[in-house]
């Protein structure tokens, strides 16, 4: 069983046991435009909920990536570093950013489910 949750910073996290796979949402990629560069957190580094965890750059501008929950980075997706265009074509599946070992699963409670996020994205319009 896995569940997917969403942050107000337009990240998604898929939770499987104590492992979270994190990426940015389709809505985020539509706002950013063509993504041409991505920087991911190093494997082994610790990231804190709502803290910086990488950068994406589109043809227009650079934007920070935040992690929706805290943990230790177990793996990052080199395929999107080599071909950032994948983030535009399949942001919520193939183009995940990094996997982490979840530090405190109660942090997940503050995140939105799909329905809540879709409503949030539509209303925030940004």
């Amino acid at each position, binding site marked *: 069983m896995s569940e997917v949750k969403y942050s107000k910073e337009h990240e998604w996290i898929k939770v499987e046991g104590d492992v979270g796979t994190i990426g940015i949402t389709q809505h985020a990629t539509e706002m950013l*435009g063509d993504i041409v560069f991505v920087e991911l957190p190093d494997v082994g580094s610790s990231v804190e909920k709502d803290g910086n965890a990488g950068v994406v*750059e589109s*043809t*227009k501008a*650079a934007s920070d990536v935040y992690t929706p929950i805290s943990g230790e980075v177990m793996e990052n997706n080199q395929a999107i570093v080599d071909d950032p265009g994948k983030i535009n074509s399949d942001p919520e599946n193939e183009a995940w950013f990094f996997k982490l070992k979840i530090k405190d699963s109660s942090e997940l409670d503050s995140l939105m489910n799909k329905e809540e996020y879709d409503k949030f994205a539509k209303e925030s319009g940004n």
Partner: protein
Amino acid sequence: MEIKKTSLNKLHQDNQAKFVEFAGYEMPIQYSSGIIEEHKFTRSNSGIFDVSHMGQLFIYGDDNLTNDLEEIFPLDLHNLKLNSSKYSFLMNDKAGVYDDLIITKLEEGFLIILNAACKDNDFKILSSLLKDKYKMVLDDQRSLIAIQGPKSVDILNQILKTVADLNFMSGNWFTYKDQKLYVTRSGYTGEDGFEVSISNELAEVFTKELLKNGAKLIGLGARDTLRLEAGLCLYGHELSTETTPIEANLKWAISKERLNKGGFIGSQNIISQISDGAKKIRVGIKPEGRLIAREKTKVYDENEQMIGEITSGTFGPSVNGPIAMGFVDHAFSKKETKILLEVRGKKYPANICGLPFYKKSYVKGAN
């Protein structure tokens, strides 16, 4: 102040434009296909750019006007042929640039195309320099539509017969739906193309005809990546009142004849910078890998001494990698000089490189 809209605003909306405010205008930054697609389409086919926010300044006068303008611009305007265009600058006494522009000789005077953000200030400066002796019209009744890319000539020639006969950097009047259009073969993308000055009322129907013939609307986002690949300066980035044309590596745009004699605004500083060398100079910069170094990124030499700053940086879709331009100390301006760029607190390797990043294909001998 209320945001201004061009005559093509509705057409932009109908084509799913994302808008940004630019120089007081609501302008399309991109359409639904995105900057990279739009960029590549322009390089391979034909892109339409609404540049109606730019200033179209008509100055009417005879030889006296030519004399007076030669005291302002570093151009040999007496020998500028009818309907020929030149790239030039409006400068201050120290050769700092108020604006870069294209000036075209018309029968009854000159047409000067100005940057949107500068046009009102340019008008004031020029009115004052010309002491209000000549009729000057900053024409907001006309739109300006650029058509750029290798297929533009065929597409435009279907609508305006004989437009294909124009040479690069020259223009002429054409008739469209009983109105006069002024068309120059020029542009800002590194591609063959045209800029069409057309009445606001005909702008939309004309653009729709271009669309029907296979051209596509392209936003300001791709306009920026196209011009940067072509190594062209953007006012407010590579050019400002703090930068001279010599520092911006644009000596080619200054008439040799005028350089020898001087007598234009800023000429003293230009001439002394040519003989003594400018301290800083505009260069192309190629970051290694995929790192994008944007405007204001600091540039260091290999010993981590600061030597300059980036003025424009983005991803070049046709180059398929990051590209930038900036100013560095003259000593570090040679091609293939290794430099470091500071991005988000870390220093990354890059190289000074030649410009343009993307080779031009202008038509020189259409006739």
